C-alpha cells in the first residue's frame, strides 16, 4: 500500500546525516519527526497496512556482533514491513582481531551494495568506526556502553502515548547505569525533550560524572522513585553481581529491585518500563512487571514502529527534498 497514511510534514523532513549513531546532541526538532512518523507506523502495524513497497529493492543488513534476538527481530520486522530485503548477519565477536573483522566486513558490505546497515557491537564507538568506511546508512543498534538510540526513541514514544508529551515529566532510570547504553541514550533524549531525569542505583553502578549529563542522582529507590511519572528499570547483568560491583543478587533485589511497595512512592499510575529481557526477581518483581502499570509489552510494539521510522527516514536522508 504505497499510498498508505503518512503524516504530511515528514515528506519534507530530512534527517541531517545518513546515520543514526546516537542521541547525544540531537535537537528536539530532529527527534520529533522520528516519534511522529513512528506513531503513524504504530497505527499501520495494528491495522496490518504498511507501505510494503516503500523500501522495495533496498537491502537492510542486520550486522550483529553481539547476540540479541529481540532487537534483531524488531529491526527485521521493521524492514520487512516496509518491503526491504532484510538479511541477518551474526558475527562471532570472540576473535581477537575484532576491528580488522569490522573494517573487512565494511568492505564486503560495500561490495554487496547495502543500503541500510543495522549494527550491534560490544565496543563503544564501533558503529561510528564502521560508518566512516561503509557507503550504507548506519543505524546503531547498541554499542558497548555508549548508546542505543532506537531504544531511547521507542521508550520516548511509549511515554508520549501515555502522557501526550515528555516535557515536565519526571523519569527515574534505575539500576546499572554505568554499563548501560540504554540509560545514556535515554538520558540524552529525555533531557533534550524537557523531561527531568533521575538515576537511581548503588554508587558502584552510577558513574561519578553522570550529573554532568543533567540528571539527579539517588542511591535509594525510596528517594529516587518519589513522585516520578515513569520508572525505567535497567537490565542487571548477572556478571556484575559476581564481579564485585554488587555483592549478590539477593542483596541487589533487596535494595534496588522494583516491587509494589517501592512503586507506591511514585505518582499514582506511574508507568513501569524495562528494555528487556527482564531478570524477574533480580531487578523487578513479577507482580510489578505484569501489572497494569507496566508498559513493557507496548515498548516492544513501539520498537518495531520506531525502527520502521528510522529505516524510512534514513533511507531518504540522501534524497533531494
Amino acid at each position, binding site marked *: 500500500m504505497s499510498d498508505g497514511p503518512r503524516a504530511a510534514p515528514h515528506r519534507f523532513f530530512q534527517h541531517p546525516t545518513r546515520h543514526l549513531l546516537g542521541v*547525544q546532541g540531537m535537537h528536539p526538532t530532529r527527534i520529533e519527526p522520528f516519534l511522529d512518523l513512528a506513531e503513524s507506523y504504530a497505527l499501520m502495524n495494528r491495522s496490518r497496512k504498511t507501505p510494503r513497497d516503500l523500501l522495495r529493492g533496498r537491502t537492510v543488513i542486520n550486522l550483529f556482533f553481539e547476540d540479541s534476538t529481540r532487537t534483531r527481530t524488531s529491526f527485521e520486522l521493521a524492514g520487512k514491513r516496509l518491503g526491504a530485503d532484510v538479511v541477518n548477519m551474526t558475527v562471532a565477536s570472540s576473535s581477537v582481531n*575484532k*576491528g*580488522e573483522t*569490522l*573494517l573487512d566486513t565494511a568492505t564486503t558490505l560495500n561490495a554487496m551494495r547495502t543500503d541500510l546497515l543495522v549494527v550491534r*557491537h560490544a*565496543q*563503544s*564507538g*564501533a558503529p*561510528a*568506526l564502521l560508518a566512516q568506511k561503509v557507503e550504507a546508512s548506519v543505524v546503531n543498534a547498541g*554499542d*558497548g*556502553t*555508549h*548508546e542505543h538510540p532506537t531504544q531511547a526513541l521507542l521508550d520516548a514514544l511509549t511515554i508520549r502515548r501515555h502522557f501526550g508529551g515528555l516535557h515536565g515529566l519526571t523519569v527515574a532510570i534505575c539500576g546499572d547505569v554505568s554499563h548501560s*547504553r540504554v540509560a*545514556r541514550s535515554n538520558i540524552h533524549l529525555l533531557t533534550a525533550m524537557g523531561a527531568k531525569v533521575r538515576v537511581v542505583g548503588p554508587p558502584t553502578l552510577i*558513574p*561519578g*560524572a*553522570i550529573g*554532568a*549529563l543533567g540528571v539527579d542522582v539517588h542511591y535509594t529507590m525510596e528517594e529516587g522513585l518519589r513522585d516520578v511519572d515513569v520508572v525505567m528499570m535497567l537490565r542487571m547483568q548477572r556478571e556484575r553481581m559476581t564481579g564485585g560491583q554488587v555483592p549478590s543478587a539477593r542483596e541487589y533485589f533487596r535494595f534496588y529491585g522494583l516491587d509494589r511497595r517501592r512503586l507506591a512512592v511514585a505518582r499514582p499510575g506511574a508507568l513501569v518500563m524495562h528494555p528487556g529481557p527482564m531478570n524477574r526477581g533480580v531487578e523487578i518483581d513479577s507482580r510489578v512487571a505484569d501489572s497494569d502499570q507496566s508498559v513493557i509489552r507496548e515498548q516492544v510494539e513501539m520498537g518495531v514502529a520506531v525502527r520502521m521510522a528510522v529505516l524510512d527516514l534514513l533511507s531518504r536522508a540522501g534524497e533531494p527534498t
Partner: protein
Amino acid sequence: MTILLFENVRLIDPAAGLDRPGRLLVRDGAIAGADLPGAEGAPEGAAVIDGGGAILCPGLVDMRVAIGEPGFEYRETVASAARAAAAGGITTMAVLPNSQPAIDDPALVRLLRARGEETGTVSILPYGALTRRCEGAEMAEIGLLHEAGAVAFTDGTRAIADTRTMRLALTYARGFDALVVQHPEDPSLARGGCATDGELATRLGLPGIPAAAEAIMIARDLRLVELTKGRLHFGHVSTAEGVELIRAAKARGLRVTCDTAPPYFDLNETAIGDFRTYAKLSPPLRGEADRQAICAALADGTIDAIASDHAPCDADDKRQPFAVAAAGGTGLATLLAVTLAQVHGGSLPMIEALGLLTHRPAALLGAAAGTLADGRPADLCLFDPDRAWRVDADDMPGRAQNTPFDGRALEGRVLGTWKAGRPVFAHPATGQAAP
C-alpha cells in the same frame, strides 16, 4: 681534519646559561668553541654553515622512547625511529625495555647501544628492565645491566604494582646509585580503562581510569623512597595531584624527579573526540585542569624533563574500536615544536624549555650529552622557532604515523641536525642536501 663553522646563529646552551648571537666551531666531530673572540673570518678549510639567525642548540636528549626493536619491528625499527629522531632534532634517546624479549640481559643492552651506533644518527641509551621480562615479580640483574650500559631501570609502560618488589628494587638499585623509573599508574585501578574517568568517558561509554590512579602510585612510591633512600623518577606525569605530590616531596629533600610528555601539556581529553584512537595514550589524556597543572609544573621546575613518550603503533592496531585499539602516540618529530608552543605562549622561557629537552634529561641519565661544552661530540640541532607548519599523520618521518597531534598547527621547525659533526637531517626548505 674537518672543520665546520656555524655562523649567524643564536647559540643556546642551557647547561651554560648561554643565549646570544654567535658562532660555533666544530673540529673533527667535536665542539671546539662556542665563542671565537676576535676571529672574524672562518678558520682555514672550514665549511661554513649560515644559520640565517636560527637557533643552534645541543641535539635533543629524549629520555622516553619506545621502539619496536626487538620484537615489534612491524611497528618501528631502530632505523625508522632514527630517521624520525633526526627530523625532530633528537640525537640521543633512551629506549624503554619492555620489548620482546625485554631488555633484561646485558647482551641486549650492548646490542641496543650497537644498533644505535650503526645508524650513525642517534645514540641509543637503553633502559634496563627493573624486573625479569618486565613482569613486575623478580628483580632483573640490575648490576650486570648497569655495567653493560643500562642508564636506568624500569618496566617501561608497566607499573611495579607489588609494593614489596618496588621496595626491594629501590633498595638494591642504591648499591649502584642506579635510577629507578616508574610508570605512575595503579594497575588495578587502571585495569580495563582507556580514558580518564569523567564526563567525557561517561558520555562516550568508555571504561574510565580515575586520575587518582597516578597520585595513588606516586604517593606509595614516595613513601618507599623515604624508606629506602633510593633514587626514583616518575615518567610521563599527567595530573595535578601527581605533580603536587612530587613538588612537596622535592621540598622535603627526597631524591625524586619526573618528566612529562607533550600530549600532557598540549592536549586534553577532548582530543579523543568521537573515538579518535590516535589520541588514545597511556596514561590517558586528562581534563583541562590537569593539563594546566602540568604547564605550571613545567614553569616552576617541578618537572625535570620533557620526553617524547614516542610509542609507535601499527595502523591496524589503531583502526579498532577505541577500547581495544592500541594505546600510544608517536612523538619524536613533534617533541621540539610542541614544547615551543609553551615558549610562544609565554609560560616557559626558551632557554628553560631547551634545558628540559637537553642537559637536564642527560644529567638524570648520567649521559655526556645535551651541552655545547668544548670537546663534547658536536650533536647539534638548528631550528627556526617561528617557522609554521601543520602536523599531518599521513606524512611523518619514520614508519609509525600515529601522532596524537594530527592537524595541529605548530611554530618551530628543525632545519638541520648533526650527529658528532655529521649532518643527519636537513629540512628541504633549507636548500641543503639531505644526508
